[in-house]
């Protein structure tokens, strides 16, 4: 009888551990609720106050609430430099560091699970979590704006929807979350502490990164170029490719003066940061003494 390889079974174990966590579903529900509130507020404004707006702005707002534009706008709420990054830091910090506190790292490793496999299995399952975080605003925003579109137009443009583009955009948004996941993974393994992993991860993504970007942008044009290499700015570079008319996009307070890199270079750098952080995590984990 053929059995799945040990690694495949470890991935399945990690998947069960992740899906069994209340934290994952709580995050997704809260995120979904936030997305719903945001859309409903914008719908309310669009319905009741559009008369007080310039015509062009009112038209753009209405268009932004109709499919397919609305789906692309909703997706952007999960980008790495914004709310999505925060959710990833909390989830990955808990998912990795708590294994040390619960002593379950010992449980798996003392049963012959190879350390690189353990980390790789966790990384693969974290990718699923990133996809779920990116998918949440798409689904919630999609349902709300879908109802709005139907009420407004009497039909939904199912057949003319750019489903392939939307799916590809979903992958792009999930991709922008990767450096934040890798940074938190690194912090969790290096510190073995949930508090440190989440605290430092959030401190970086919410505070430090924005401060650095703002400062660099304020100093000079040359310094502003450096700001373009931070993960939040790289995420912005990729978000630009989704759609330039993103009315609902959540900006992280990044100065407009900062230079955005070309999307292909930004994608390359995001991948590079992720690989470097994961390699550093593996290097530390292989040398760690996992004691009682």
């Amino acid at each position, binding site marked *: 009888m053929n059995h799945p390889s040990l690694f495949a079974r470890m991935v399945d174990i990690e998947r069960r*551990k992740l899906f069994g966590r209340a934290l994952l579903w709580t995050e997704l529900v809260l995120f979904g609720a936030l997305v719903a509130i945001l859309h409903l507020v914008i719908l309310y404004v669009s319905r009741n106050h559009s008369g007080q707006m310039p015509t062009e702005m009112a038209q753009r707002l209405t268009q932004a609430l109709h499919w397919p534009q609305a789906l692309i706008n909703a997706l952007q709420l999960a980008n790495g430099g914004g709310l999505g990054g925060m959710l990833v830091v909390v989830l990955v910090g808990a998912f990795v560091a708590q294994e040390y506190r619960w002593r379950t790292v010992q449980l798996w490793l*003392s049963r*012959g699970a190879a350390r690189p496999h353990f980390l790789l299995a966790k990384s693969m399952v974290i990718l699923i979590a990133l996809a779920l975080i990116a998918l949440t605003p798409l689904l919630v925003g999609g349902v709300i704006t879908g109802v709005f579109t139907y009420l407004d137009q009497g039909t939904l443009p199912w057949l003319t929807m750019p489903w392939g583009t939307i799916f590809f955009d979903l992958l792009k948004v999930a991709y922008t979350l990767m450096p934040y996941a890798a940074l938190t993974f690194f912090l969790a393994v290096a510190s073995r502490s949930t508090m440190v992993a989440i605290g430092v991860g959030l401190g970086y993504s919410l505070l430090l990164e924005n401060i650095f970007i703002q400062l660099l942008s304020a100093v000079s044009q040359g310094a502003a170029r450096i700001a373009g290499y931070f993960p939040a700015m790289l995420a912005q570079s990729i978000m630009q490719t989704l759609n330039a008319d993103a009315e609902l996009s959540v900006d992280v307070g990044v100065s407009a003066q900062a230079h955005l890199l070309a999307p292909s270079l930004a994608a390359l750098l995001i991948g590079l940061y992720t690989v470097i952080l994961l390699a550093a995590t593996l290097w530390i984990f292989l040398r760690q*003494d996992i004691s009682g």
Partner: protein
Amino acid sequence: MTVVLQTRHLRKQFGDFVAVEHVDLSISEGELFGFLGPNGAGKTTTIGMILGLLHPSAGRVEILGEEITPEHTDALRHVGALVSTPGFVPYLSGRENLHLLARLYPDVDRGRVEEVLKLVALQEAAARKVRGYSTGMKQRLGLAAAILHRPRLLVLDEPTNGLDPIGMKEIREMLRTLADEGVTIFLSSHLLHEVEQICDRVAILDRGRILAEGEVSHLLQGKRDLEALFMAVVAQS
């Protein structure tokens, strides 16, 4: 007889502190081996190296002839372990934790999970989340997890921690039965009377070094019991 566990010149140093020095052990199939020592003697550190959790500073560990290091852990698939207070996923039930572990072993099915839960008398509490378990219940679940995949070597660090006298007796009988079935057992314990009752051989460790090793009956010659022997050996060191 097949040597199941062997350590050669095993040493572990943390900074300037030498926790384990020149530990040489050889344990054969079906043996029930007692590993004794006062607190801080280096027992858990030795077990950590046997299980590939700690990097030895020098020396080597072999299980069934295969070297074990944190990088080479294949042979650990034949090992069941219970180290101090066992760790489990707290938001899952005892049964779910065992099902999760069973995923590592293709030959372990749901029936086996129920079998080991019954063996450690944890069937009634198996549906409860582990975060609500007492120390004794976690210990029982740890034992269930250790024997789940019918290992050839059991490494147990204080397995009766938190158990009441009846529970301790049940575990003692279970270990003896397993040894009779050919399972090799490496038992670290503070409970000298317990070790004397069930072990074939013992080693006494203090300050990282083995001070005495041999068959219980042989070591006890001229001594009242294992406790007297232990006190004399540790006092001499």
